[in-house]
């Protein structure tokens, strides 16, 4: 099954493969700028597609300044607030870099910022894993419709959407190719 093929047929491509690469480069630069050279900084990807995005940010930061930023995975399944509505989901693996989070600057990385509930769950999860000095948020796409007082520190692209449209972020690791596609409401039945 090829998401990109489906996307090309049904949705409107917002970011091409080259666009995604440029956006990731820009966010990497912004992180270096805002964290004075990524000192004491940890990148935590939120599964599924936040993980490869975090990996790429780390790779770009390494390419620009030869700094190895510790990289981890933060699974938030057990901290979600929709267990009663959606039922149990398979749990992903959480992987915190050696040295822990205490006193570090943690940058959460996700593909799409929508209601803000995923980030809320991630903040709760972080609290149980340690005490970071500060927490920032990097997303590839901000599509609006926030339900909680949460904003991103680094945004790849703001895409105004209707509530029942959906945004598909494709990454090569999972979907064969990079890209961001806006799906009309009828194509997927809503939610991200």
């Amino acid at each position, binding site marked *: 099954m090829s998401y990109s093929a489906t996307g090309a047929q049904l949705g409107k491509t917002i970011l091409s493969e080259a666009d995604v690469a440029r956006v990731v480069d820009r966010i990497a630069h912004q992180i270096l700028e805002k964290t004075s050279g990524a000192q004491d900084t940890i990148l935590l990807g939120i599964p599924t597609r936040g993980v490869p995005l975090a990996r790429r940010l780390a790779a770009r930061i390494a390419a620009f300044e030869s700094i190895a930023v510790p990289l981890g995975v933060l699974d938030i399944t*057990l*901290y979600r607030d929709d*267990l009663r509505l959606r*039922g*149990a*989901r398979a*749990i992903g*693996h959480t992987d915190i870099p050696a040295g822990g989070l205490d006193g570090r600057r943690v940058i959460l990385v996700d593909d799409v910022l929508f209601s803000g509930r995923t980030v809320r769950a991630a903040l709760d999860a972080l609290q*149980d*894993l340690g005490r970071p000095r500060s927490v920032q948020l990097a997303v590839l796409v901000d599509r609006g419709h926030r339900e909680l007082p949460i904003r991103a520190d680094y945004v790849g692209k703001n895409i105004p959407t209707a509530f029942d449209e959906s945004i598909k972020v494709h990454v090569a690791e999972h979907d064969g190719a990079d890209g961001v596609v806006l799906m009309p409401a009828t194509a997927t039945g809503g939610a991200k």
Partner: protein
Amino acid sequence: MIKHLLSAGDLDAVSANLVLDTAAEMASLAGREVKKLPTLRGRTVVNLFYEDSTRTRISFEAAAKRLSADVINFSAKGSSVSKGESLKDTALTLQAMGADAVVVRHPASGAPHRLANWVEGSVLNAGDGTHEHPTQALLDAYTMRSRLGCVAGLHVVIVGDVLHSRVARSNVLLLHTLGAKVTLVAPPTLLPVGVDTWPVETSYDLDAVVPHADVVMMLRVQNERMDQAFFPSAREYARRYGLDRPRMRRLPEHAIVMHPGPMNRGMEIAPEVADSARSTIVEQVANGVSVRMAVLYLLLGGKS
């Protein structure tokens, strides 16, 4: 995912592996500073124990508390059961209190099945008579997987009082589902009628089977359920069906020794075997919490 866990046979290979995978993630919690997850906040889990138990009750209690559920412990001693209250009336009381899950242990085989028709929440069988103990089978499979990598293809030898053992019944069902080969070893008097219809091989000779085992699971001789003489003497039983040091030495290098507990040291298992590096007995208890967390999460989360 299913609503109740009454029998290990309720699980197909996909859902059994889902439980084991989930348990593996739950286990990573043990290394954390805050060993608590908010997942089941506001849910109530009732431990309904009509039979004595230490590890299973404590294990379920720890599992529910680590997921932030509220736990109510009920043991038949010191409750209205001693005044003659029936299982059904007790169940309706629990229902009125709004139990989201009932963990039940009962001396009568099939009691959890009856209970499942009376309460709205999920029912988890924590051992019913000589019938089944599915979470024990899951934690045993989890232990095999973490020690030996994979359950499929393993040769598991279950030794001892199969007749009275709910652990053996649940293990046979689950291990068959997961693709392991099971051999039951017991004196003829302690093998149940109809065992030839189970997906297992049977043997009366432990010495012949030991060199080909990946896992040896010793069962407790359940004196409290034995109303007649099933073997001549404890010494003879220990000599023919007990796992002592010479027998352990004849096991393959990688083989592990399991026991669901509580042990009769010197009877079915020699103390030096129980305390050896092959023994997973303490590990099984630790894994029990992770596996029960996974089961509670998947059963209670399955409700929509």
